[in-house]
């Protein structure tokens, strides 16, 4: 009876104190699954477990408890070879498998994951340390949704992705923060579009990827279509650089993303990077502060802040600053931190001690700078790899914790006064992954959302994800999108295009593009004489200048370059552009960009049509000029001019027809995909088709609101220079198209190295292409290069296909939830 008495006392205590009881999720099925594998896992290749002899091993641990879960192996290069060759073999049949059949496979995978949802969620929480509440309610349901959604894309590829085809073998490299979810973001679209995949999961978190591979095999996915190899970072590089890998899809740190960019530069591989972030949470005085507080919990304490899109930089309008801080501190006091399998926990473990240490160092650094660090929790475990939710105030814009990604549960808070100041603070970062805006004023919300330079902006919410909306960054947060139709372009290439495998040796990146300016040439100078009243007069000299900011400009260092006609005679001289000309042109392009982007699409269209109109007036003159320079027949020259006019009309037409779409996500509300301009784009034109090539490149960019700094055909630049009179008479605002003449690779070097060029399009040599891709890594700018291939510019697909639009925009998804109306 004594025992009963004790129980009754316990009951009394419970009613008195009303504490949370433990609500543990059982780990026995996961343990049994691990036991089935003898506690040790190999690679999963061709639907079989492969455990090569003599490999080093890695013990994966449960971060909540420190307990060893299982052993995985450290793969070596031959393992990568084996997986890639399995994938390559499977690609032959998988890429030819009809979309409907692929759809059935993806559908089956979704179904099988649902059958094993609980097991997957528990594995994920045990291996990563995240709360079971999150793996069960967020990670795994998103995985399922992604496969269903992409089963649909496989079904519809023939109609919705007409003109695009699969790429080949995709090497996917994913991080440890959402091991299963992020691998799915690569796997589902890759398979849907007919590619096969070799995945390297992160070292800390390999189990769920291996479990998924097993489940895919159970679901009937053919051997070799999806393979998993485990190993360290060096093995990741081996995968990325394997000659038979056609595309590298990466999510992870900016640093590793940059390494990958360099590693695959010039190889003809496609690359998409989803990197780090320092995403702002902008709270206006018109916000519902209580909702904002819960939103901030989702923004920065979700998954212990180990989220690339974590809202780690809170910007709050001054009138409500103190109130918000008070509410946040209050909220922190009852955030519960504990075991990842306890369902009553708000936060669980940090993935690894080294990550925890890095977080600690950041916070310590902030303390050293005199910042106020607030840490409090409702409960906190005595042991295990945990870090408390942290709010840092009294920081400056220069503080390390404000500028760098901490990747932990640490938010910094800064005040602002006006919306304009908020936007400046929000964009004062190298990153551009995401952000959120908090206000009950929908007009303000939209305006600020459009001004934040990031791939996703959430209004009155944060960290919502769905398969129907692409996720990915601006600036150093990378390029490419995971999810939505926009994400499919990362796993397809234009149907006409074959992968190029240029053989480029080592390049000296320091000396590439260096040039020695030309000196005067005698003997073959152009002699034009005009008879006036019987007297032979020398023709008036025509000096071509460069063109930027809407005006003709002499080169910064006035050197000239002789331009030869088809007859070998000097036809004229153009300015020799250098580093400073690039600097000046980029500056004016940026000055023009905001206004140009804001212009009504109708207005942009009118300007482009006007260019066509003015070009047609000078049709014969341009055609003759082309012939004199290239040696073609007049008919060919006329054809090129006509095609250029046609192309101006084509892109003029697209001015107001590619603004974006509404995405059909699971949100109750509207998710808007906006096709925003990329920014200022550097362009190097091909030598061939001096007029058509130039028009084909600048026009799609400009109609989508970009400004360009463009190097015309190095050999025949005069046609582009003749166009600037047409620009001036067509009301094109100054700074939208800026033309720099000279040595293509010399100017390309400085364009690519310029930190404020957002994308570089290069149509030149294979070496130059490699240089551009390699050099772009520093600020993770987008690139589009030819690898030395000479495009058939008159061809409609090659010269004005959908890829031109893809290259001219970046997708931003704005999430606007609803939910004001209820009941009567």
């Amino acid at each position, binding site marked *: 009876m004594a025992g009963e008495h004790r129980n*009754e006392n316990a*009951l*009394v205590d419970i*009613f008195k104190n009303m504490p949370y009881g433990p609500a543990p999720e059982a780990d026995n099925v996961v343990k049994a699954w691990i036991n089935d594998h003898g506690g040790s896992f190999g690679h999963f290749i061709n639907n079989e477990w492969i455990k090569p002899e003599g490999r080093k091993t890695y013990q994966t641990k449960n971060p909540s408890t420190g307990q060893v879960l299982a052993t995985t192996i450290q793969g070596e290069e031959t393992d990568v070879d084996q997986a890639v060759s399995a994938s390559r073999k499977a690609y032959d049949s998988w890429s030819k498998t009809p979309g409907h059949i692929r759809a059935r496979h993806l559908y089956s995978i979704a179904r099988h994951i649902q059958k094993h949802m609980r097991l997957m969620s528990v594995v994920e929480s045990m291996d990563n340390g995240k709360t079971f509440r999150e793996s069960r309610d967020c990670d795994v349901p998103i995985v399922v949704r992604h496969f269903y959604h992409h089963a649909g894309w496989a079904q519809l590829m023939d109609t919705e992705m007409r003109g695009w085809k699969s790429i080949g073998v995709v090497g996917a490299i994913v991080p440890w923060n959402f091991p299963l979810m992020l691998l799915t973001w690569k796997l589902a679209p890759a398979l849907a579009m007919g590619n096969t995949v070799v995945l390297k999961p992160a070292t800390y978190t390999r189990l769920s990827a291996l479990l998924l591979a097993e489940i895919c095999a159970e679901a009937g996915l053919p051997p070799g279509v999806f393979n998993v190899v485990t190993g360290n970072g060096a093995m990741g590089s081996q995968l990325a650089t394997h000659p038979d890998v056609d595309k590298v899809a990466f999510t992870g740190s900016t640093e590793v993303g940059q390494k990958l960019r360099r590693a695959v530069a010039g190889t003809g591989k496609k690359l998409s990077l989803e990197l780090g972030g320092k995403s702002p949470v902008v709270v206006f005085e018109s916000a519902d502060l*209580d909702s904002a507080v819960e939103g901030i919990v989702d923004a920065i304490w979700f998954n212990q802040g180990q989220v690339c899109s974590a809202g780690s930089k809170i910007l709050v309008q001054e009138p409500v600053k103190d109130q918000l801080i008070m509410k946040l501190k209050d909220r922190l006091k009852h955030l519960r931190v504990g075991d990842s399998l306890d369902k009553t926990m708000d936060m669980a473990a940090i993935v690894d001690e080294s990550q925890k240490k890095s977080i600690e160092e950041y916070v310590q650094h902030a303390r050293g700078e005199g910042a106020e660090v607030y840490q409090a929790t409702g409960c906190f475990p005595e042991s295990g790899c945990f870090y408390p939710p942290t709010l840092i105030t009294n920081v400056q814009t220069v503080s390390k914790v404000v500028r760098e990604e901490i990747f932990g549960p640490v938010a910094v808070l800064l005040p602002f006064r006006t919306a304009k100041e908020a936007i400046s603070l929000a964009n004062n970062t190298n990153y551009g992954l995401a952000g959120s805006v908090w206000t009950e004023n929908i007009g303000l919300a939209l305006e600020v959302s459009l001004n934040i330079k990031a791939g996703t902006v959430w209004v009155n919410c944060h960290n919502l994800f769905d398969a129907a909306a692409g996720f990915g960054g601006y600036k150093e947060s990378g390029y490419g999108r995971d999810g939505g139709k926009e994400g499919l372009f990362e796993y397809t290439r234009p149907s006409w295009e074959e992968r190029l495998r240029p053989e480029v040796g080592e390049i000296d990146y320091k000396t590439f593009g260096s040039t020695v300016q030309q000196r005067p040439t005698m003997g073959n100078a152009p002699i034009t004489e005009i008879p006036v009243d019987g007297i032979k007069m020398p023709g008036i000299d025509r000096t071509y200048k460069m063109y930027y900011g809407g005006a003709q400009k002499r080169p910064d260092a006035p050197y000239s370059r002789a331009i030869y006609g088809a007859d070998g005679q000097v036809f004229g001289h153009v300015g020799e552009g250098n580093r400073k000309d690039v600097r000046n042109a980029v500056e004016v392009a940026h000055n023009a960009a905001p206004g140009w982007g804001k212009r009504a699409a109708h207005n942009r269209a009118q300007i482009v049509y006007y260019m066509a109109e003015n070009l047609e007036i000078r049709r014969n003159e341009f055609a003759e000029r082309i012939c004199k320079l290239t040696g073609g027949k007049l008919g060919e020259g006329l054809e090129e001019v006509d095609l250029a006019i046609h192309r101006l009309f084509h892109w003029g037409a697209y001015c107001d027809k590619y603004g974006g779409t509404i995405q059909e996500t699971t949100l109750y509300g509207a998710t808007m995909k906006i096709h925003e301009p990329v920014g200022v784009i550097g362009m190097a034109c091909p030598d061939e088709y001096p007029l058509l090539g130039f028009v084909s490149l600048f026009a799609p960019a400009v109609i989508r609101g970009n400004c360009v700094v463009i190097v015309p055909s190095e050999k025949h630049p005069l046609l582009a220079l003749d166009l600037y009179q047409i620009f001036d008479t067509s009301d094109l605002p100054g700074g939208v198209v800026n033309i720099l003449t000279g040595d293509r690779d010399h100017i390309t070097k400085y364009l690519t190295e310029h930190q404020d060029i957002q994308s570089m399009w290069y149509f030149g040599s294979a070496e130059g292409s490699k240089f551009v891709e390699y050099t772009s890594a520093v600020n993770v700018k987008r690139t589009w290069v030819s690898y030395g291939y000479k495009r058939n510019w008159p061809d409609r697909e090659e010269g004005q296909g959908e890829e031109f639009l893809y290259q001219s925009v970046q997708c931003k998804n704005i999430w606007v939830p609803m*939910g004001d*109306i*209820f*009941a*009567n």
Partner: protein
Amino acid sequence: MHMTGITTGAVCVYPNRVAECKKALKELQATEIPIASVATGFPTGQVPLKTRIEEIELAVMDGASEIDIVINRQYALQGNWQGVYDEVQRMKVACGDAQMKTIIAAGDLGTMANVYKASMVCMMAGADFIKTSTGKESVNATLPIGLVMVRAIRKYHQMTGFKVGFKPAGGIRSAKDACTWMSLMKEELGDDWLNAQLFRIGASGLLTDIERQIFHHVTGRYAAGYEMPMS
């Protein structure tokens, strides 16, 4: 269980049953259980103010120590918050020492903003509790409504220091639902709001399920509904 001294928060009846109820509780030697009465033309409130006030006075006179009133929804939807305030304040005077719970009839208010405003106006006019609904509207105690109301309570507490109670009513039928509402209180308002002084659940059908869950907790077996006494 008897050691915990747990009882129902109150017995809630229509005004003309208050006297009878008081007698019954006396016979059961349970006079410590308060009698609550819905008054003011429950559930619609569509009777003249004079009648509504008298109804309160009569219920209090008969022994009710808690009065659940309904606000004037017409005024609320017209934006006449002053009118709502004035009426509730007069009702509070009529309650005298009895506790006043104000039913905002959230399901009739149309927007969450109105739910918040009604909650605030009632607290300003002297409500001891704010209550979601009569149980007769098409939408009653939902968690989003509850969230808005408890946040109003929190704000009012921060502004004035007064702790106002909360009573969700209508549609709460299972022990699990009750736990969810309790965690809402615990998370948003804290442990102070986890007792009968500041938290009530208006539910006639809930008790049986709570008993069934306790039965399961003790025996490991799920009880049939008919094994529990009807409530």
